[in-house]
C-alpha cells in the first residue's frame, strides 16, 4: 500500500526558501568511480559496513562491563570517547556527512527485525506496529534535550566504562524497540542524540546524495522508488526499501536528514541519484527553531566541555563529577547553569545580535525571526571547528592509551601486541593551544564566509547583505576570542 512520506523538519516553526549559492560546482563521484556506484547499489553495501562496527561495539560492551573500572585502562572509554569521537567529529562528519549513520551498528538489529531480512529486499509488511512517528515530535527537539541531558552527565559518561555501556547499550535497545513500533528509522531521525548533531554538522560536509536532475524526478509520474520502495526489476530498479530517513530525493536540498544508506540508489527507476562532491558548507539553510537551538546547544557545550574536561577549573570539575565528589548542590548549580546557557542565555545573545543585524540592514519588512534562524547557521561551521579544537587535545594528550588498551583491552594486564605497557606519552602537548587557535580561526573564516551566503539569501542587494552581516561577524569574532580564552587558559 502506498505510504506518504513525512519529511523531517516539516513541523519546524520557520520554513525558509532554499539559498542557492550562485555558480555552485559539484562533481558526480559515482560517474567518476563506477565501481563505487556499483558497490553502493548492492544490497550488501550497508551490511558490510555495519558488520565490523557491530563486532567492535559488541566487544566494547563486553569490555565495558567486565573490564577495568578505570576509564584509562579500559578500551571502551579510550576507543569510544577518544578515538571514535575524534574520528567522528574531525573526519567523518566534516568530510563524509553522515557516513557514520550508514555504518552505525546500534539500530541494525531493529532494522533487520523490522524488515525481517538482513540483506534481501522483503516487500512484506514490516514487523511490529508500523506506526507513523507522532506529528508533534517531527522535529529535533527531543534530540536536543536528549543530547543536553547526556552532556550534563558527560564527565561520568567519558570516564566510567559502565556508564558508557548503559548509554550505548540503551541506544541500541531503545532503537530496536522503537523500530518495532514506528516506521523505518524514526528513532534515528527524531530521537538519537548522536544523530542530531551529525545532521546539523553534515551541512558542512563536501559530499551529498542528490538527484542528478531534479526535472527527471518531477517528471516521473509513477510510484517513486525512493518514496515507496521498489521491487527488483521495477522499471529497472535494483530493488530496495522506501527511504528509511523519510526523505524524498527529488526535493532534498540539505544533508541534515540523509543517512547515506544508499537505499535510494537501489530504488530509483530513473537512475537519477548520485553522490556528489561539493564545496564545504554548501548547505546554508537552517529550517527552524529546533535546528537553531541544536546549533546553540552544541556551541555552548563545546565551551562547557573545554572547561570541565580540559580546563584548570577544579571547582566546576568537582560539580560536574557528582558521583565522585558527592557535591549534589554543586551539580545542581552546574546543571542549571549549563542548561540555561544552552537554552536561554546564548540564544538570547544571538537574538540581540540578530536584532542589531536587522537594524543595520534597515529592512523593517523582514521579521526578526528570519534573521534569528537564518544567522544561526553561522554557528554550524564555527561550532563544528570548535568541537574539533576541543577534541584534538583529547587525542594528542591521551592517544597513547590507544596503544596500551589495544594490547590490553580489559585492563587485566594482557599484552597482546607488545604495547600493553606503553607509557602515557602526550604527543606534542605544547602545540595544542596553537593548533586550537588555528582551528578556531578556520571556523571563524568559514562562518563569516557562509554568513555572506546566508545574508545574500536574505537580501539580493550586496550592500544591504554586508550591512546585515557586520554585527553577526562581530559576534562571531567575540565568540572566537571567548573560546581562545578558554582553550588557552
Amino acid at each position, binding site marked *: 500500500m502506498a505510504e506518504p512520506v513525512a519529511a523531517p523538519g516539516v513541523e519546524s516553526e520557520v520554513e525558509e526558501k532554499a539559498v542557492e549559492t550562485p555558480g555552485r560546482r559539484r562533481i558526480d563521484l559515482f560517474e567518476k568511480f563506477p565501481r563505487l556506484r556499483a558497490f553502493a547499489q548492492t544490497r550488501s553495501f550497508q551490511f558490510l559496513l555495519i558488520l565490523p562496527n557491530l563486532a567492535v561495539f559488541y566487544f566494547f560492551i563486553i569490555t565495558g562491563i567486565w573490564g577495568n*573500572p578505570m576509564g584509562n585502562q579500559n578500551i571502551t572509554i579510550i576507543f569510544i570517547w577518544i578515538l571514535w569521537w575524534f574520528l567522528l567529529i574531525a573526519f567523518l562528519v566534516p568530510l563524509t556527512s553522515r557516513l557514520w549513520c550508514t555504518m552505525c551498528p546500534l539500530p541494525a538489529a531493529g532494522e533487520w527485525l523490522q524488515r525481517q531480512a538482513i*540483506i534481501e529486499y522483503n516487500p512484506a509488511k514490516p514487523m511490529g506496529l508500523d506506526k507513523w512517528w507522532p506529528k508533534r515530535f517531527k522535529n529535533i527537539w527531543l534530540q536536543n534535550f536528549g543530547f543536553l541531558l547526556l552532556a550534563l552527565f558527560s564527565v561520568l559518561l567519558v570516564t566510567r566504562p559502565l556508564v558508557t555501556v548503559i548509554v550505548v547499550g540503551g541506544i541500541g535497545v531503545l532503537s530496536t524497540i522503537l523500530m518495532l513500533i514506528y516506521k523505518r528509522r524514526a528513532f534515528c531521525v527524531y530521537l538519537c542524540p548522536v544523530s542530531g548533531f551529525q545532521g546539523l554538522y553534515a551541512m558542512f560536509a563536501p559530499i551529498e546524495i542528490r538527484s542528478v536532475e531534479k526535472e527527471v524526478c518531477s517528471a516521473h509520474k509513477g510510484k517513486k522508488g525512493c518514496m515507496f520502495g521498489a521491487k527488483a526489476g521495477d522499471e529497472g530498479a535494483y530493488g530496495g526499501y522506501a527511504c528509511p530517513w523519510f526523505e524524498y530525493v527529488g526535493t532534498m536540498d540539505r544533508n541534515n536528514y540523509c543517512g547515506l544508506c544508499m537505499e535510494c540508489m537501489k530504488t530509483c527507476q530513473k537512475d537519477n541519484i548520485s553522490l556528489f562532491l561539493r564545496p564545504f558548507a554548501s548547505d546554508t539553510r537552517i529550517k527552524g527553531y529546533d535546528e537553531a537551538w541544536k546549533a546553540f546547544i552544541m556551541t555552548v557545550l563545546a565551551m562547557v566541555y573545554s572547561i570541565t574536561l580540559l580546563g584548570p577549573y577544579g571547582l566546576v570539575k568537582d560539580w560536574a563529577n557528582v558521583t565522585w565528589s558527592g557535591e549534589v548542590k554543586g551539580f545542581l548549580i552546574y546543571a542549571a547553569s549549563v542548561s540555561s546557557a544552552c537554552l536561554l542565555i546564548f540564544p538570547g545573545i544571538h537574538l540581540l545580535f540578530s536584532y542589531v543585524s536587522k537594524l543595520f540592514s534597515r529592512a523593517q519588512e523582514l521579521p526578526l525571526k528570519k534573521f534569528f534562524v537564518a544567522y544561526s547557521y553561522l554557528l554550524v561551521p564555527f561550532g563544528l571547528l570548535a568541537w574539533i579544537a576541543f577534541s584534538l587535545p583529547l587525542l594528542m594528550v591521551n592517544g597513547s592509551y590507544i596503544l596500551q588498551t589495544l594490547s590490553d583491552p580489559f*585492563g587485566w594486564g594482557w599484552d597482546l601486541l607488545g604495547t600493553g605497557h606503553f607509557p602515557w606519552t602526550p604527543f606534542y602537548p605544547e602545540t595544542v593551544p596553537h593548533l586550537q587557535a588555528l582551528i578556531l580561526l578556520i571556523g571563524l573564516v568559514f562562518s563569516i564566509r557562509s554568513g555572506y551566503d546566508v545574508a545574500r539569501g536574505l537580501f539580493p542587494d550586496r550592500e544591504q547583505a554586508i550591512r546585515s552581516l557586520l554585527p553577526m561577524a562581530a559576534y562571531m569574532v567575540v565568540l572566537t576570542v571567548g573560546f581562545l580564552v578558554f582553550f588557552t587558559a
Partner: protein
Amino acid sequence: MNRLDKIVSRLALPAVLLTLVVIPASAWWYERVHLPSQYPKDAKVFTIWWSGDQGMSLNRITAYNYWLKRVNQLEEIRVEKGDRVVLRLISSDVYHGFALPTFGINEVLVKPGEVSEVEFVADKLGSFLFYCTIRCGLVHPEMKAKLTVVEPQVEKVAQAELLAQ
C-alpha cells in the same frame, strides 16, 4: 541480486551469530586457558585483584562490580609447605604496594593495568600476614590477608573434609 549479494545474503546471519559468540569466547579462552598455561604446572597461581575502594579479592574487580556491589574480601590463601607460589597482583584503580615480610617481600608496586608477579617457595609453616603498603583508598586499612602454609598431609585432609561436607 548480483553475485556479491547472493554470497553475503547467505553468510550474513551466520556471520552475525558467529560474531556474538566468537568475541566473548576468545576473551574467555585467552584469560582462562591460555594465560594460566604460561605458568609452570607445579606452581600454585593466585590472581589477587586490588582496589582502594573494594579491597583485595580473588574475585575479578570489574567495571560492573566496582560501582554496583562489593566484592568478597580476601581473607586467606592456603598452600602446602614446599609449594611454588605465584601471586598475580592486578590493581583495578590506583597504585598499591604488596608486602609479605616473612618471605622477604617488602614492597612490590601494584600498578593499574599491569600484572605484578611475586614468586616464592612456601618453605615456612604457619600463617603470615600480607598487606597493602600504600595508603590507597577508603578500605586501605582492611587490605590485609593471611598466607597459611600447612603440611601437605594436613591440607589434603582439610580438603577431603571440605569435600565430604
